[in-house]
C-alpha cells in the first residue's frame, strides 16, 4: 500500500508539471486551431532564463522573496518572448493554410532549441537548491517540500486560470474568440489582442512549469523541451484539446499513468504505454475525455 501511495504522490507531482505545460498547448489550440510545437522549447528556455536571473540578477540569493522574484521575472521574460513568437511566426500565417502554420511552429521550435544551445551551451546546466530538501515521512510514504510546493502552486494557478476564463469579461472574450473569431470581431472583440493575451498566459504558465522542472530535477539541457512538450501535448489531447479543465485533468492522468506503469511494469515501457493510451483515447473518444463533440465545419 505504501508503494501505491508513494507512486501516487510521484505521479501527481509530475502530472501537475505536465498540466501546466499542457495548458499552453490547449489555450493556443482553442483560439487559433494551431498546435504550438514551440511551446515545449519555450518551457526549456524558461528554465535557462530562470537560472540566468538567479545567477546574474539576483546575485545567487536564495531567500523566499528572491525565489518569488525569479518566478515573476522569468514569467515576464517568457511572456515577452511568447508575444514575439506569435508576431513573427504565427500572425503572418493566420490566413494561410493550416499546414503552413504547423511547419512554422516546428521551425520556431528548432530556432528556440538551437538558440538555447548557442546562448547557454550544449552541456547540462545545474539548478541551485533553491528549495531546501525537507521531507516528511507518513508511515513509509515520503513527501518532500518541493513536491508540495509544485502541487499546491500548480493547483492554485489552474483554478485561477479557470475562474479568469469562466467568470471575467476578458475570459468571456477568450471563449468567444475560440468559438468563432469573425463573430467575436463583429461583437467588438479585438481578436489580435486576445491572441496575444493567450500567448502571454500560456508562456507564463509554461515558464512556471519550466522552473518547476529545474527546481525538481535540478539538471536542465537545451533539448529537454521536446520531451516535456510531447508529454504535455499528449496530456492536452487526452483531456480534450482546446479545453482548459481537460488539459489539467489530462496532465494529472498522464503523470499518474506514467508513474504506475514505470513503477509496476517497467520504466522502459512507460513511454510506449503512454502512446498506446493516446491511441486508445483517440479511437474511443477522439475529442478527449472532456472534449465536446462538435460538428465538423464543412
Amino acid at each position, binding site marked *: 500500500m505504501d*508503494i501505491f501511495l508513494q*507512486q501516487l504522490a*510521484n505521479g501527481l507531482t509530475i502530472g501537475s508539471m505536465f498540466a501546466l505545460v499542457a495548458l499552453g498547448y490547449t489555450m493556443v489550440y482553442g483560439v487559433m486551431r494551431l498546435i504550438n510545437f514551440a511551446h515545449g522549447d519555450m518551457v526549456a528556455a524558461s528554465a535557462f532564463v530562470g537560472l540566468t536571473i538567479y545567477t546574474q540578477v539576483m546575485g545567487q540569493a536564495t531567500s523566499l522573496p528572491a525565489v518569488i522574484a525569479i518566478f515573476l521575472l522569468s514569467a515576464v521574460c517568457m511572456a515577452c518572448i511568447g508575444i514575439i513568437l506569435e508576431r513573427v511566426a504565427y500572425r503572418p500565417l493566420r490566413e494561410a493554410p493550416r499546414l503552413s502554420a504547423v511547419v512554422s511552429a516546428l521551425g520556431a521550435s528548432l530556432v528556440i532549441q538551437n538558440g538555447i544551445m548557442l546562448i547557454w551551451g550544449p552541456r547540462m546546466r545545474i539548478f541551485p537548491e533553491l528549495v531546501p*530538501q525537507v*521531507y516528511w515521512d507518513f508511515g513509509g510514504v*515520503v513527501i518532500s517540500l518541493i513536491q508540495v510546493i509544485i502541487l499546491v502552486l500548480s493547483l492554485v494557478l489552474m483554478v485561477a486560470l479557470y475562474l479568469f476564463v469562466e467568470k471575467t469579461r476578458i475570459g468571456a472574450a477568450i471563449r468567444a474568440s475560440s468559438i468563432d473569431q469573425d463573430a467575436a470581431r463583429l461583437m467588438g472583440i479585438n481578436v489580435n489582442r486576445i491572441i496575444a493575451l493567450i500567448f502571454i498566459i500560456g508562456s507564463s504558465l509554461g515558464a512556471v512549469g519550466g522552473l518547476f522542472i529545474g527546481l525538481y*530535477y*535540478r539538471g536542465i539541457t537545451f533539448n529537454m523541451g521536446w520531451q516535456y512538450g510531447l508529454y504535455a501535448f499528449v496530456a492536452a489531447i487526452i483531456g480534450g484539446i482546446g479545453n482548459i479543465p481537460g488539459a489539467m485533468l489530462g496532465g494529472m492522468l498522464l503523470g499518474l499513468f506514467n508513474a504506475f506503469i514505470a*513503477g509496476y511494469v517497467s*520504466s522502459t515501457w512507460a513511454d510506449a504505454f503512454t502512446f498506446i493510451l493516446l491511441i486508445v483515447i483517440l479511437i474511443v473518444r477522439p475529442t478527449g475525455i472532456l472534449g465536446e463533440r462538435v460538428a465538423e465545419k464543412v
Partner: protein
Amino acid sequence: MHKLSKLMLAAAAFCLVAAPALADTLKVGVQAPITGSYANEGQGIENGVRLLAEQINAKGGVLGKKIEVIVCDDQGTAMAAAICAKDLVNQGVKMVIGSYTSTCAEAAQKTYFNAGVLQTSDGTADSLTAKGYWTFLRNSFPNSAEAEFAANYMVNVKKYKRIVVLSDFSTYADGLANATEAAIKKLGGNVVSRDKIKADSQNFTPVLTSIKAKNPDVIFFAGYYSDGGQIRSQQVALGIKADFIGGDANDNPDFVKLAGSAAKGAYIINVPSPDVLPYDIAKSFIADYQKKYGMMPASIWGLMNIDGMRAIIHAMEANKSFDTRKAADYLHNLKEPLPGITGPIAFAKDGNRKGGSYVVKMVKADGSYSYEYVK
C-alpha cells in the same frame, strides 16, 4: 633568380643526403583527440608522449635511435580516427599511443593490425581486446576489472546483505552492471534487484520506489553522472536509507552539483587520480610534467598511455630489436610486472592489462572527496 635556383638545388641535395639520417629515428605515432570535446585529454596524451620522448632522447634514445613523435588529431570521431591510422602507418611509425576513447581506438585497430604497428590505448570497452589482434595492448583496466573490484568492496569490505544493481541501457553501463552482478554472485553476495533506467529521463522516482520496497543496503549505479546525481537526490528524497555507490562515469563535479545536499555520503568508484599515485616513478614523472607544462596531467588516462609507451620501449630494448611482433610476444609473456606510473604493468595474452587499481571516494558535506578504500 639564378641564385635562388642554386639555393634550391643545394637544399634538395641536402635533403637527399640528410633523408637517411632523419629516417634513422624511431617513429612514435600519437593518435588522440587534440581538438573537440575530449581535447584536454588528447592534449594530455600528446604532452606526456613528448615529455617521455624528450627524457629518453636525452639518455641517448632507444637502441641508439632518437624518438620522433608524429601526432595525428582524431577529434574523438571514428571517421577521423580511421584516416589518422592510415596516415600514421604511411609515415612508418612503429607504435601508436592512443586513442583516448574506445570508439576511436576501435576504428583504427584493424589498420594497425594489418600493418603490424603496435597500438596502446586506454579505452576500457571489453570489445577492444575481443578481436584477437596481437598489435593491441590495453594500458588501462577493462570494465570487468572494475566490476570485480566493486563486487569485492560491496560483499567483502562493506558486507552489504541486500544489493541493488542499477544501470541504463548503454553498452558501457549495461556491461559494467552485468559484470558486477555476476561478480557479486560469484562472491556469494545477494543481488535483490537488477533494474534499468532510461538515461536522461530525469524522473527516476517510479523505479526507486519499487527499489525501496526491496529494502536494500546499497544501490550500485553503473551509468553516467548526469543520471547518477539525480538518482542520488531522488533516492534521498524518497527516504531510501541505502548507501549509493556510483561507477567511474559518476566521477564528475556535476554529480555533486546535481545531487546537491543529498550528495553527502555517496560513494564513487574510479581509477586513482594522478595526485594520489603512490609510486616513485609517478611522482617524478608528474613533477617533470608540471615543470614542463605548468599544470597537472589532465587525468590518469594520459599517464596510462605513457605506461603503454614505456612498456613497448622497454620490450624493444630487452629484445635489442625494433621488431613489433617480438615486442608484443615479450609483453604478453612477462615473467614479472614492469614498474609503471599507474602501477605494475603486465599484459594478458589477449592484450588486456592485468590487475586493476581502483579507489572508493566518498563525497563530503562540502562536496570534496575523502578516500575510503584504495587497492
